C-alpha cells in the first residue's frame, strides 16, 4: 500500500510484512487493523444473532451450524452479540478505524501525534478481542448475564454459572476501554494541535469534530465504569462485596456506574456516524452543509446533555421514583439537539444536485432509519410509558433502529465512500446497490415485527416463549419467524458486500485521486496515500463544504486551493 513518493519527515525503508502491517505506526495501517478486526468481530456478532434468532423462531430446533441451543447457550449468545456489536464493532470501526484513517488526512498532517501510543492502542484492542474470544471456550462457557452485566448475577459464579467466562468478559471490556482511552487522547491531541496551517476551528470537517467530541464524551464517562469494573472483578475473583447486598454492598451502584457510561456511549458512536453522513450528503448533493456551526453546537449540546440522562435506563430498576421525574425531563430534552441535527441534514439536501451513488444511498438511509430510532426513543424516555415498554422487544427494536444505522449503515456509507482513497480502487456500484437494497429492506423486515411483538408484551432475553401463554397468542410466533427469516436474508446479503469488497480490492477499477470531486484534504493525497500522506503538507484557505460556490469555477473548491486560482 505504499507507493513511496515524497516523504515528509519520515525515514522510509522497505519494510517486511510484519513491520509494515502488524507492527506499523502509520495511522492508515492502524486504521485498517481496526477496520478488519472490527469486520471480523462483526462476523461473530452476526453468527451469534443468527443462532439465537433461529432458536426464537423455531424453539428447540437444531440450528444449522451450531446445533441445539440450550438456555445457557442462549444467554451467552445474547450477551456476546450485544457486547461485540457495541464494543468490538461500532467502536473500532466508527471511531478507531475511521478516526485513525481520516483525522491526519483530513486535517492535513502526516500522522497521529503519538504513533507508538496509537500502535499500543490497537494492540490492547486486539488482546481484548482475543480475551473475549477465549471466553467462549473456557470451562462453563461465555458470560451470559447480558451486556449490562448487572450484579449480583455477574458477580457470583454460583448465580451465573460461568466462573471463568464472567471475569474474562469483564477483563476484555476493561482492556477495550483502556485501548480507546489511549486512542481517544491521541485523536483529541492531534486535532487540537496538528491542524494544517490556515485550518481554523470552523474549517475542520464535521466528521473530525464528531470523532473528537465522541472521544471526549467517552473519556469523561468511562472513568466510573473502569472503577466499577475493577470493583466487580474483585467481587468475582477475590470475593469482595462491593455489589453484594448481603455484605454491605449495593447492586444498584453498578447500574448507575454502568449507565453513567452506557448512555453517553450511545452518543459516542452516534456522533461519528452523523459526521460521516455530513461528509457524504454534502459531496453528493454538491451543497454546502446547512448551518455548519449549528451542527457543531447541537453535537456539543448532545454530548453535554448525555451526561444527565443515564438513569432513564433504570426507571423501573428500583431507583427512587422521584429521581425518575428529573431524568425523564432531561431525557426528553436531548431530543431537541438531535432533532435539530436531523433537520439540518434534511435542509442540506434542499436545492442540491443529488446523485444517488452507493455511499449517498447509505447516508440517506441513515437519516431515514435513524429517524425511526429517534422517535421511538421518546416512548422510552417518558417515564410513564417506559413502565410498560421497559425490557420489551419494543426497546430492542428501538435501539436497533439507532445502533444498526450507526454501526452498519454508517460504516457501509464510510467504507463505500472512502474505499477509493483507502485502497486506490473503485467498488462496483451495481453490486453495491444490490447490497444496499437487500440490507435495508431486510433490516426493516426484522425490526418492524419486533416493534409489534414488543408492543404486545414480548420481553427480552427469553429463550423460549412457549412458557408464556399470553405471548403465544395468534400472530406472535409468525412475527418472530418473519423477523428471523429477514435476518437470514440480511446476513446473506452481507456476502455480497464481502465479495464486492475483496474482489474490488484486487481487481477493481483504479481510482483517481479525487473520484467524488470532494473538497476535504484527504482527496489531495494520492489514492492510496503513501506513508507520510502528502507530497507536501497542505495549507488550508477555506471551510470544507464550499460546494457550488458562486465564485469558484467548478462546483467544488478544495480546501487547499489558494484563492487566486479560483
Amino acid at each position, binding site marked *: 500500500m505504499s507507493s513511496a513518493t515524497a516523504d515528509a519527515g519520515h525515514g522510509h525503508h522497505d519494510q517486511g510484512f510484519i513491520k509494515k502491517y502488524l507492527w506499523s505506526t502509520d495511522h492508515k495501517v492502524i486504521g485498517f487493523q481496526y477496520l478488519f478486526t472490527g469486520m471480523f468481530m462483526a462476523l461473530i456478532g452476526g453468527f451469534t444473532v443468527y443462532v439465537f434468532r433461529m432458536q426464537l423462531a423455531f424453539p428447540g430446533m437444531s440450528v444449522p451450524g451450531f446445533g441445539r441451543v440450550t438456555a445457557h447457550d442462549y444467554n451467552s449468545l445474547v450477551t456476546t452479540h450485544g457486547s461485540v456489536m457495541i464494543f468490538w464493532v461500532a467502536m473500532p470501526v466508527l471511531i478507531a478505524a475511521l478516526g485513525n484513517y481520516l483525522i491526519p488526512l483530513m486535517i492535513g498532517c502526516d500522522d497521529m501525534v503519538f504513533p507508538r501510543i496509537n500502535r499500543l492502542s490497537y494492540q490492547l484492542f486486539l488482546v481484548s478481542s482475543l480475551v473475549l474470544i477465549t471466553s467462549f471456550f473456557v470451562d462453563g462457557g461465555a458470560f451470559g448475564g447480558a451486556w449490562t452485566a448487572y450484579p449480583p448475577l455477574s458477580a457470583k459464579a454460583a448465580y451465573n454459572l460461568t466462573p471463568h467466562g464472567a471475569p474474562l468478559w469483564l477483563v476484555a471490556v476493561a482492556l477495550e476501554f483502556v485501548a480507546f482511552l489511549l486512542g481517544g487522547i491521541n485523536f483529541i491531541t492531534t486535532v487540537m494541535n496538528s491542524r494544517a496551517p490556515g485550518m481554523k476551528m470552523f474549517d475542520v470537517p464535521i466528521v473530525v469534530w464528531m470523532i473528537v467530541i465522541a472521544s471526549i464524551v467517552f473519556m469523561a464517562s468511562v472513568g466510573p465504569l473502569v472503577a466499577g469494573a475493577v470493583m466487580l472483578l474483585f467481587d468475582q475473583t477475590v470475593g469482595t462485596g462491593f455489589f453484594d447486598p448481603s455484605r454491605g454492598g449495593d447492586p444498584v451502584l453498578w447500574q448507575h456506574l454502568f449507565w453513567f457510561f452506557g448512555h453517553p456511549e450511545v452518543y459516542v458512536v452516534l456522533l461519528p456516524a452523523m459526521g460521516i453522513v455530513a461528509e457524504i450528503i454534502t459531496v453528493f448533493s454538491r451543497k454546502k*452543509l446547512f448551518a455548519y456551526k449549528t451542527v457543531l453546537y447541537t453535537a456539543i449540546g448532545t454530548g453535554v446533555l448525555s451526561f444527565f440522562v443515564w438513569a432513564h435506563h433504570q426507571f423501573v430498576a428500583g431507583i427512587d421514583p422521584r429521581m425518575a421525574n428529573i431524568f425523564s425531563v432531561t431525557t426528553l430534552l436531548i431530543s431537541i439537539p438531535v*432533532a435539530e441535527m436531523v433537520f439540518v441534514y434534511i435542509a442540506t439536501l434542499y436545492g442540491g444536485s443529488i446523485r444517488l451513488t452507493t455511499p449517498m444511498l447509505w447516508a440517506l438511509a441513515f437519516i431515514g432509519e435513524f429517524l425511526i430510532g429517534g422517535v421511538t426513543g*421518546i416512548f422510552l424516555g417518558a417515564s410513564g410509558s417506559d413502565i410498560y415498554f421497559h425490557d420489551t422487544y419494543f426497546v430492542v427494536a428501538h435501539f436497533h433502529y439507532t445502533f444498526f444505522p450507526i454501526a452498519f449503515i454508517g460504516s457501509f456509507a464510510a467504507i463505500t465512500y472512502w474505499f477509493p482513497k483507502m485502497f486506490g480502487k473503485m467498488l462496483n456500484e451495481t453490486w453495491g446497490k444490490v447490497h444496499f437494497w437487500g440490507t435495508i429492506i431486510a433490516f426493516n423486515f426484522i425490526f418492524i415485527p419486533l416493534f409489534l411483538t414488543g408492543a404486545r408484551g414480548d420481553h427480552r432475553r427469553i429463550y423460549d416463549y412457549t412458557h408464556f401463554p399470553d405471548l403465544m397468542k395468534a400472530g406472535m410466533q409468525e412475527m418472530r419467524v418473519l423477523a428471523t427469516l429477514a435476518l437470514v436474508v440480511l446476513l446473506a446479503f452481507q456476502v455480497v458486500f464481502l465479495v464486492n469488497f475483496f474482489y474490488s480490492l484486487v481487481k477493481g477499477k483504479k481510482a483517481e485521486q479525487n473520484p467524488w470531486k470532494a473538497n476535504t484534504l484527504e482527496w489531495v493525497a494520492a489514492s492510496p496515500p503513501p506513508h507520510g500522506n502528502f507530497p507536501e503538507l497542505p495549507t488550508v484557505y477555506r471551510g470544507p463544504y464550499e460546494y457550488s460556490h458562486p465564485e469558484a469555477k467548478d462546483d467544488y473548491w478544495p480546501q487547499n486551493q489558494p484563492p487566486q486560482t479560483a
Partner: protein
Amino acid sequence: MISHYLEQASTFARDIDNLILLITLTVGFWFLLAQFLFFGFILKFRAQDGKKAQYISGENKWEKRWVSLPHYATLFFDVLIIIAAIRVWQDVKMTLPQADSTVRVIAQQWAWTFVHPGPDNKLDTADDIRTVDELHVEVNKTYHFELQSRDVLHSFSVPVFRLKQDVIPGRTIKGWFKPTMTGGFDVQCTEICGIGHGIMAARVLIENAADHAAWVKANAPQVAAATPADNVPTGGSR
C-alpha cells in the same frame, strides 16, 4: 392502541395506553413531516445536466428558521409529553392508595413465591397462603405488593396491568395495582437472572369475590399447620 392487542386489566393500564397514544400522535406527526420533506427533497433535487446546486450557507436569519422552528416545536411537544408522562408516573409509582390487601412477592432463581395474607388479611401470620408461580387476587380490590429477592435481580412484570418493577436482593420495594377484570394472565421476569430466566413464568389469576373467597378458604393452612409445602421460611431473605 396497545389495548387492541392486550387486555387492560388494571386501573392505570388505560392511562399508560393513553400516554402511549399521545406520544404516538405527537411524534408521529413530526416523523411523517420529516420523512415527507426528506423524500420530497431527494426526489425534487436530483442532479440534472448543466444545473448547478444552490449555495446556501444556512447562516442568515431567514435560513436559521429551519433550525429554530423544529427547536421550539420539539421543545413544546417535549413539555407536553413530559407533563403527561409524569402524571402517569406519579399515579403508578409515586402514590400508594389505601390498600384492601397486601401480597408479598418473593423472586428467586427461577421461580416466584407469592405470599397471600390469608383469611385474616394480614401478612406474617400463621394463616398466610404461599403459592409458587401463581398469584391469586380479587377483582376491583386495591393491592399493595412487596417485592423481595433471594439471590439476584429479577423484575416483576404483569403486561396486562402495564406494571413492571425490578426486584433487588436486600431491598423491599412496594407498589400497588387494582385489577379491573377477571381472568388468568402472564407474570414475567423481565430482568435477566441466569439460565432459567426464559422459563421464569407465573400466572396472575384474577377472581371475582366469591371465587376468591372460596380459594382462600380452600387453601388457607389450618392454624399452626406444618411448614408450607415449598418449605420456604416466612419473609424471604430476612
